């Protein structure tokens, strides 16, 4: 364990700021959470649509290779040669049906089999290529969203998602048949929990755009799912009305077919955030880099049935609306940094909005309540083994 356990306040609406800043907790978080019994989304299969497509990512330092073989099956591997663990593939994405490690020329198929290695007669007696496939973490797909876990203990993905699965399905256009538009990637100067605590959650007062565009939020609900406190938002579609300061109104137009679906946000423990807002479908794959840095890959999607005009509209809206320089989210990004700086002060962060009783946790909230984050904090506290002070 870390140097000293973190003293956790008795009230559920208080979080010790040291949780964001004590770097000695970080290694323990990696062990218990990122390498522990949790599922982590790493990509959507539509990011590698064709046979032979691959992607590489790193999750909490672990290099992963996602490949689609020539029969169309998607698999996740460790991106390391099964011989001496040399990084196998260096490209971020591409198309290959075989992966060769240049160190000793071991060659792997997109199914992960070792299909060739020079001079095996010089290896250990009885060496058999069949014993050296690429290593694999456990992985599962949910409507094309690829999850991995590094623990054999983790429950099934369905159990992990609970009720959040339904909202997540709706968010991914109902059927997960997505088409990749591209990425915005960024590093934030924020502990991963500071990122997760403030992305997804809405602070309407922060965003002058809503007022300037006469944009009222749609009515909706916020709920948390499972013991992990995954946060889900479901709200009716809202569009800006009345005079606007924008000359290009398409940025905030809704051109979709099904207004009943409205806006969705799903935030899964520990770091994943996803949103469907207007015609933007955005999956944010986040990973801690170190105790003070979080890297987020914002991936944007169209739907496979979209016509050319709709794809164009999504492209124009996605690029400028959300993300690290988006009209209504740049300010969120600045909060990640500023919360992290401000958390280097003594005491607790105190959640107010929506908290009715500091001695109780709830699971249904109003749309802009801060209290939706509290079940997740309780789960974090319990996983980390910190004792809550007695009432």
């Amino acid at each position, binding site marked *: 364990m870390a140097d000293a356990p973190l003293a956790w306040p008795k009230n559920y609406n208080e979080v010790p700021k040291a949780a964001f800043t004590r770097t000695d907790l970080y290694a323990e978080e990696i062990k218990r959470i990122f390498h522990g019994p949790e599922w982590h989304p790493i990509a959507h299969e539509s990011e590698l649509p064709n046979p032979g497509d691959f992607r590489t990512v790193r999750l909490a330092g672990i290099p992963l290779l996602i490949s689609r073989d020539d029969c169309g099956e998607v698999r996740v591997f460790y991106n390391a040669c099964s011989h001496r663990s040399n990084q196998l593939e260096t490209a971020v994405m591409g198309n290959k049906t075989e992966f060769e490690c240049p160190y000793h020329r071991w060659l792997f198929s997109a199914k992960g089999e070792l299909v060739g290695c020079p001079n095996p007669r010089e290896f250990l007696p009885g060496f058999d290529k069949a014993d050296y496939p690429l290593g694999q973490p456990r992985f599962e797909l949910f409507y094309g969203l690829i999850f991995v876990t590094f623990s054999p203990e983790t429950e099934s993905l369905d159990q992990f998602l609970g009720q959040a699965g339904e909202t997540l399905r709706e968010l991914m256009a109902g059927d997960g048949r997505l088409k990749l538009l591209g*990425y915005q990637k960024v590093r934030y100067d924020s502990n991963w929990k500071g990122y997760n605590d403030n992305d997804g959650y809405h602070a309407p007062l922060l965003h002058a755009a809503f007022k300037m565009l006469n944009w009222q939020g749609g009515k909706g609900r916020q709920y948390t799912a499972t013991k992990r406190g995954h946060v889900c938002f479901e709200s009716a579609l809202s569009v800006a009305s009345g005079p606007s300061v924008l000359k290009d109104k398409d940025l905030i137009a809704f051109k979709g077919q099904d207004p009943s679906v409205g806006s969705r946000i799903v935030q899964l423990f520990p770091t994943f955030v996803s949103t469907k807002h207007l015609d933007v479908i955005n999956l944010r794959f986040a990973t801690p880099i170190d105790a003070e840095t979080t890297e987020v890959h914002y991936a944007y999607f169209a739907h496979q049935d979209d016509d050319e005009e709709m794809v164009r509209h999504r492209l124009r809206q996605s690029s400028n609306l959300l993300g690290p320089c988006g009209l209504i989210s740049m300010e969120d990004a600045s909060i990640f940094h500023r919360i992290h700086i401000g958390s280097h002060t003594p005491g607790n962060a105190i959640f107010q909005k929506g908290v009715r009783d500091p001695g109780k946790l709830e699971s249904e909230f109003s749309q802009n309540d801060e209290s939706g984050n509290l079940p997740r904090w309780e789960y974090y506290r319990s996983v980390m083994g910190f004792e809550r002070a007695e009432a």
Partner: protein
Amino acid sequence: MKIATAELEAALDRLLLADANALDSKDMPGWLANYAEEDGASYYCRAAENTEHNLELGFMFDDCRARLEDRVTYVTEIWAGTFQDYRTRHFVQRVSHCQVDASTAEAVSNFSVFMTPMDTGVTQVLAAGRYLDKVRLSENGGAKFLSRRAELDTSVLPRYLVYPI
């Protein structure tokens, strides 16, 4: 009409430097003034990684004059007072150019941008990459961007962006 090489180079360089100067001065109306007054005037900022994989999505996708004007509004009105401000210094170097027709030229330039956040005062590299420009030439030796694409080698930004690159 073909413009003499020295004259064209001088016009292009004046435009490149005027843009760097406007951005580093946080002069958004000045930035806008470097773009041609045509509906199709455009500015894009995206990771070269996206372009290389035929992914058009970018950090900024201002594909018409109206969006360029909106970007001035984002920075000067909508976002005012919400972000940690930072200084930038753009270093630009033209590496190739050609005249396409009497009123159009194309130019490729390398750029690097330093940033210094006002709160920390520590200077870092914000981004490096290339500008791919299409330039409208006027008879009096003037030049304005018809289209500018900032293609970032930096596929992972070190922070959120407020100002165009």
